[in-house]
């Protein structure tokens, strides 16, 4: 498993390629998700996002969540990269990739880990744009998806 906090823009493509190249012969499936900073939100144009984290606790908590997912789905390997700092539109914010024997586990692992990250990972987002500045907190839909996963 690899968990990384990136304080500068990262290339999701090259990190994904590196992860794919590291796979063993038993891995028959790789599923991935990349979340990008959008240039628009329901408040108007977005100029940037400020992402804060809690050094030490954030890494530990993501690692704990990642281990839960690895065990639940019997994954071969899991990659999580998450940006902090000032993120501008089109930059990747998060990359999650799962390696498993077959596709179902990899698809489910990526979707579930993203649901956990939305509500349980220690990050705080502040959006700045044409509508001013505001904190972005989990939506009701995010909370419902997380609740459906149980503990």
């Amino acid at each position: 498993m690899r968990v990384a906090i990136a304080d500068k823009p990262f290339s999701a493509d090259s990190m994904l390629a590196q992860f794919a190249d590291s796979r063993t012969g038993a891995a028959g499936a790789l599923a991935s998700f990349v979340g990008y900073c959008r240039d628009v939100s329901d408040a108007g144009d977005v100029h940037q996002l400020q992402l804060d984290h809690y050094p030490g606790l954030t890494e530990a908590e993501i690692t704990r969540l990642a281990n839960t997912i690895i065990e639940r789905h019997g994954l071969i390997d899991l990659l999580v990269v998450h940006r902090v700092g000032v993120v501008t539109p089109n930059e990747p914010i998060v990359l999650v990739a799962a390696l498993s024997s077959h596709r179902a586990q990899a698809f489910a692992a990526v979707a579930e880990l993203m649901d956990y990250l939305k509500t349980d990972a220690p990050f705080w987002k502040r959006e700045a744009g044409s509508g001013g500045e505001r904190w972005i907190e989990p939506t009701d839909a995010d909370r419902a998806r997380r609740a459906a996963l149980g503990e």
Partner: protein
Amino acid sequence: MTRILFFGRMSEAAGCSELDAELPSELRTVAALRSWLADRDAALKQLILSPGIRAAVDRGFCGDDASIVGAQEIAFMSPLSGG
């Protein structure tokens, strides 16, 4: 001295992201610290007493009845939002 950290919306209410405080020795739990901070700072009062604000003692999430005796760092966090 105990370092108190504020994250997200909490830092805005506190007007800072961290402060060092000499906590009275009778403060023994996270709940007691919340009340103490609320009494001390009107701007903090509404948020710090909200159940949506999670706490961590020495970088581990904890409930309101957790001990803060001997803690070096206590954090109060508004709802987490990754991804």
